[in-house]
C-alpha cells in the first residue's frame, strides 16, 4: 500500500495548494468588485466622516497584501470574521446555512445518483432501441433547459395547478423530517433533472466501452442474462469514470444551487451568498467562496483517489 498512500498524500497536498491559490483569486476578485465597501454599507446617506470612520474600522486603508494575510491567518485558525452588515459571526451563520444546503444536496443526490445509474444501465441494456433513445432524449432536454426555467415550470404546474408540493421551500427547525422533505420536493426535482443527464450518459458510455471487451463476450457465450452481465461484470470495471462524474455532480449540487435556492427561496448557502454580494459584505462573500471552493476541490479529490484505487493501472504508475 506504500505507493498508494504516497499518491493519496500527493493528491491531498495538491488539493491544499489549489485551495490556497483559490483563496488568492477570491480575495482579488472581491477587490475588483465595483463600488466602495464602506459606501455600500452606509448607503446613500453616508456622510464623509462616517465613511472615513468605517474605512478605518474595516482596515480598508491598509495595503491589500496585509489584509489578505490577516484574513488568511483568521481562516486558518477557524475565524471567518464577522459580517459587516449585521455584525454576526460568519462561521456561526454559515454553519446553519451550509447544513441546509447539504441537506438539500443530500436528498437530491439520494434521488439522482441511483436513478441516473439505473437509467444508464437500462440504456445500455436496450441500446439503440426506443428505451435508450427515450431516456437520452428526456434527460438531455432537461439538462439543456436553464434550471430556473425548469423551476418555474414545475412551480406552476406541480405547485400552483396541481397543488402537490409547496412552491416556497422555506424549511425551518420546527418541521418534522417528513414535512421538510415535502417542502423541498420541488427543488430536489429540479436539481435531479439538471444533474441526471450527465451521470446517466457517462454511465452508459463507460459501460458500453467495457462491453466491447472480450471477457464480456465470454460471459455472453456462457449464457448469462444481459442485465447480470452489465451489473456484475461490466459495471465494476467502469466505476472510475462514473465515480468521477458523480462527484462532479455532487459538487455541483452543493455549489451550483445558487439559482435554485433563490428561485425556491430555500434558506441555504446560495441565498446567503447572493444576499451578501448585493450588500458588498466582503468577509461573507470571501468565506462563502472559500467554502464552495473547498467542497468542489474536496469532492474532486475524492473522485481522483477513488479512481486511482479502483484501477490497478493507476495504482502502480510506471
Amino acid at each position, binding site marked *: 500500500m506504500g505507493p498508494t498512500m504516497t499518491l493519496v498524500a500527493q493528491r491531498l497536498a495538491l488539493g491544499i495548494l489549489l485551495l490556497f491559490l483559490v483563496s488568492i483569486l477570491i480575495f482579488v476578485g472581491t477587490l475588483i468588485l465595483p*463600488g466602495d465597501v464602506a459606501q455600500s454599507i452606509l448607503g446613500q446617506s453616508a456622510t464623509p466622516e462616517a465613511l472615513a470612520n468605517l474605512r478605518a474600522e474595516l482596515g480598508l486603508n491598509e495595503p491589500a497584501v496585509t489584509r489578505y494575510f490577516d484574513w488568511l491567518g483568521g481562516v486558518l485558525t477557524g475565524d471567518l470574521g464577522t459580517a*459587516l*452588515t449585521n455584525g454576526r459571526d460568519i462561521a456561526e451563520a454559515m454553519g446553519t446555512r451550509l447544513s441546509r444546503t447539504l441537506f438539500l444536496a443530500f436528498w437530491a443526490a439520494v434521488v439522482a445518483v441511483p436513478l441516473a445509474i439505473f437509467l444508464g444501465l437500462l440504456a445500455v441494456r436496450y441500446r439503440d432501441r426506443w428505451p435508450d433513445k427515450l431516456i437520452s432524449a428526456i434527460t438531455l432536454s432537461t439538462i439543456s433547459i436553464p434550471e430556473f426555467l425548469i423551476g*418555474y415550470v414545475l412551480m406552476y404546474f406541480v405547485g*400552483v395547478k396541481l397543488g402537490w408540493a409547496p412552491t*416556497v421551500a422555506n424549511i425551518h427547525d420546527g418541521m418534522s423530517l417528513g414535512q421538510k422533505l415535502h417542502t423541498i420536493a420541488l427543488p430536489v426535482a429540479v436539481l435531479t433533472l439538471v444533474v441526471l443527464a450527465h451521470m446517466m450518459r457517462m454511465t452508459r458510455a463507460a459501460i458500453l466501452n467495457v462491453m466491447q471487451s472480450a471477457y464480456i463476450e465470454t460471459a455472453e457465450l456462457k449464457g448469462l442474462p444481459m442485465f447480470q452481465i452489465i451489473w456484475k461484470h461490466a459495471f465494476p470495471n467502469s466505476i472510475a469514470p462514473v465515480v468521477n462524474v458523480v462527484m462532479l455532480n455532487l459538487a455541483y449540487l452543493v455549489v451550483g444551487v445558487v439559482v435554485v435556492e433563490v428561485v425556491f427561496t430555500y*434558506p441555504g448557502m446560495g441565498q446567503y451568498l447572493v444576499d451578501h454580494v448585493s450588500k458588498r459584505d466582503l468577509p461573507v462573500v470571501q468565506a462563502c467562496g472559500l467554502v464552495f471552493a473547498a467542497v468542489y476541490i474536496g469532492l474532486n479529490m475524492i473522485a481522483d483517489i477513488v479512481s486511482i484505487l479502483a484501477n490497478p493501472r493507476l495504482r502502480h504508475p510506471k
Partner: protein
Amino acid sequence: MRDQLNYYAARVSAGLMSRREFMGRAAALGMTAALANTMLSSAVRAAGPQKGGTIRVGIQGGGSGDSLDPAVAANATMTMILRMWGEPLVELAAGGGLDGKVAESWRSSPDARIWTFKVRQGMTFSNGKPVTAEDVLATIERHSGEDTKSGALGLLRDIKSMSVDGDEFTLELGSANADLPYLMADYHLIIQPNGGKDDPTACIGTGPYVLKSADMGVRLVFERNDNHWNGDGNASTIELIVINDDTARVAALQSGQVDMVDRIPPRTAGLVDRAPNITVRKTSGPGHYVFIAHTNTEPFSNPDAMMALKYGMNRQEMVDKILFGYGSVGNDTPINAAYPLYTELPQREYDPDKAAFHWKKSGLDQPVLLRTSDNSFPGAPDAAALFQQSCNAAGVPVEIKREPNDGYWSEVWNKQPFCTSYWGGRPTQDQMYSTAYLSTADWNDTRFNNAEFDKLLIAARAELDEGKRKQMYADMGMILHNTGGLICPMFNDFLDATSDRIAGWDESPGFGLMNYYAPIQMWVAG
C-alpha cells in the same frame, strides 16, 4: 335583488363563497362591478374583524444581512417587522392627517418652533415596563445623535434641544417647522425602552405583536400582544416569509402558501388579478420614477437643452408601456395628489416641435448621454429607450449607457450628470423638497439651486395659514417644473395582492400593503 345580493355578500364574508363567484352572480343580477365591489367590502367590514388564525405574508426586500435595529431599517421587510412590534409617536391617518400612537396629543408654539408631545397614559412596552417621556427622549436622541447611523437622521438635524416634563416630551427646533409631527411618523422612529440604547435589536416596543422567532432574510414569526393599548391586531400569529424572486412570490400566493404579497410586477398584474381567489390591490402613492439631470453641468445647465428634454418626454406612453397603466403621468415636479396641500399645475405634454425649437436654440449638437440600469426602477432600460425614441423624433439626440446594477447607487446616482432613478416619496411636500431640491440638501440629485425656491421652502415651514402655504408650494412647484433638472414622467402605484382567505383591506396613505399595516389590520375570513 338587493336582499339576494346581501345574502351572497354575507356568504362571501363568512368564507362560504369566493369573491369571483360573488362578482359573477352580481353581474348576473345586473349590477356593475364597481357597485358590487363596494357592497362586498362593506359586507365584509360589517361582519367585523375575526380574531385568531395565522396570516402569512410573502414580502420582498429582506436579506440575511438585515439587522433588527430600527435605526438602520432600509427595506420593505425591515419596515414591516417594525410595524409588528413597535410604534412611532404618531402615524398617518386613513383620511389624511395623523393618528396618535405613543403620543396621545401634541401641540406647537405659535411660531411652530417648539413642539410638545404628551405620552399616552397607561401604556406599557412588551416587557411590561411603562412607557415614559424619558423613553421617547432617549429614542429621538439615539436617532439624532452625532454618531448615529439612523436613516431618520436627515429629518432630525434641526433639533436644538429636547426636554421632558412629567409625561410631556418637548422638542425645540432651530427653525420653524409646521410639519414636524409628520416627521415623527417616520418608520425608523419606533419608541423603545431607553431609546434602544441598551439593546437596539431587542424588538421590545408597544406594537400589537411580539417577535417569536427570527431568521433574518428567511422567516420571522410574530404572536399577538394581548396587552396592546387599543387591541390592534387580528390574527394570533403573523408569519413574514421573505421571497425576493417576483415569480416565486406570486406563485406562493397562487398556491396558497402565503395570504398576501407585496410588489406585483406591473407587467403581470393583469394576469395575477385574473387568477381565482386573488385580488390585486392598487395604492396610488407619492412614489415616482425620474430622469435626473445635474443643472450645474453642461449641457443641462443650458435651460433650453433642459427644456428640449422635458418636451421630448412622452409621459403618457411611459405610463402605458412601463407601468402598464398602473400609475399616473408626472409633471416634472415630485409632488402629486398624494400630498396634502397639492395644487395641480398645467400639464406638460410631449411636444416634438417645442423640443426641436429649444434644442436648436440651445445651440448644442453633441448627443446627450443618459445612464440607466435595471435596478434604477423596474423597466428603466426600456423607459430610457422610449425616451431616446421620442427625443430622436424631435431631433434631440440621446445616447444610452447601460450601467451594471452593482454599484449603481454609489457610482452613478447622484454622481453622474444624467441618469434614471426613483423616489419613494415623502409624507409632506416640505419633506420631499427638503430632501432633494433644497440647494443644500445631501440628496440634491439634480444639483438644483434656486434662491427663490429655497426662500419659499423655509418660509412655508413657519406658515401656519394653510391657504398661504398651499400657494407657496404651488409657486415652488412651478419654479421646479420650469427650471429644475427633474424630468418626472410617471408616478407608480404600489401593487400588492391578497387572497380570499383574508379580509379587511382598506385604502391607506403611505406605502403599499396598507402602509405595511395590512397583516395587522386584516383578518382571516371565515
